[in-house]
């Protein structure tokens, strides 16, 4: 339900075809905020340069996580807002949706954050994010030529990821 305009004013983007390109872009951050990977498949509008864009995304998710954990009605802990939390502590926020996109988020216990921006009609992508995390472990962590904490530059990972994402509904 929208108060400030119906779906006629800001129409949703056209429905995705079965041949893929439902995902717009993807970020992977590590625990320290270093952007390990940024993949883009369909992004018509770019407003900031990439560094600022990454910082904005990381900051947004950090704040959202903090906020959702503090607003949790089922938790008894009454810490201060803004206190950094360990991954897995508190409730875990996993997606938000607007009329033009849906952002899905997953954080691993090691602090690796995977963010996937898709079409708003996408279903729950938690299992897909887990699969992507598996791909990360197989082709990045187990790659002897990769130094942890540096941006990912692996051809195998990129191709497998692209293939998988094209198949997402």
């Amino acid at each position, binding site marked *: 339900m929208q108060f400030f305009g119906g779906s006629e004013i800001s129409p949703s983007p056209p429905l995705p075809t079965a041949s893929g390109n439902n995902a717009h872009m993807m970020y992977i951050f590590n625990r320290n905020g270093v952007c390990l990977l940024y993949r883009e498949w369909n992004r018509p509008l770019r407003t900031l340069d990439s560094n600022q864009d990454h910082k904005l995304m990381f900051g947004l998710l950090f704040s959202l996580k903090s906020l959702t954990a503090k607003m949790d009605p089922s938790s008894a802990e009454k810490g201060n807002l803004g206190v950094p939390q360990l991954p897995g502590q508190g409730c875990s926020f996993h997606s938000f949706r607007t009329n033009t996109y849906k952002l899905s988020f997953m954080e691993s216990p090691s602090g690796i954050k995977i963010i996937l921006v898709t079409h708003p009609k996408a279903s729950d992508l938690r299992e897909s994010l887990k699969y992507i995390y598996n791909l990360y472990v*197989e*082709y990045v962590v*187990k*790659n*002897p*030529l990769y130094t942890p904490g540096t941006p990912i*530059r*692996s*051809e*195998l*990972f*990129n191709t497998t990821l692209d293939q998988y994402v094209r198949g997402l509904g």
Partner: protein
Amino acid sequence: MVREVSESCMDSLLTEIVSSYCNRFYVNKPELAARRIEAIGYQVGHQLTERYTIERPRFSDHLEAIKFICKDFWSELFKKQIDNLKTNHRVSFRPQILQLEVAIQTFWLLQGTFVLQDNKFRWLSHMSVDPSVDISGAGQEPFAMSENKSAQATSMHLYFPCGIIRGALSTLGIPCAVSADTSNLPACSFVIRIKV
């Protein structure tokens, strides 16, 4: 009674062997590091061969031994067989024919090379290089140089399997030299040169 080990642990151990020898024990001396890693492989190959040939009769000739490496030995280690075996081995040793022995011996000096090709070498299956050359702020790196660096890094990881093959063949009574070639990951070729 078969005891099992997690494959991820094995992979991490192998990665760390190469990393430790190249970056900590023999920094800036890649040839020494390579030799040490190959020597470890030699021991492992020796012991594995003793174990896997425990109930078999002796091998009649070099080709049989190489076929054992390609089929049974490779299956035990990597759960698959060698995909392609090439050789220029044309003459087989016939000790009864004394007058031809000398001629055959000299033939052997030139021949006796085997190429074992594995199209998806298990220990290289997670390895991958830069998809593109990055022109970073520090300066331009020519494409050839970065290719060389990644090729060198990849080849360091092949000394261990080369050592294993060399150890295995030496235990079977065939002294040899083994080298590896990875022009296209994850396929890998091992070249065995048998010493006469």
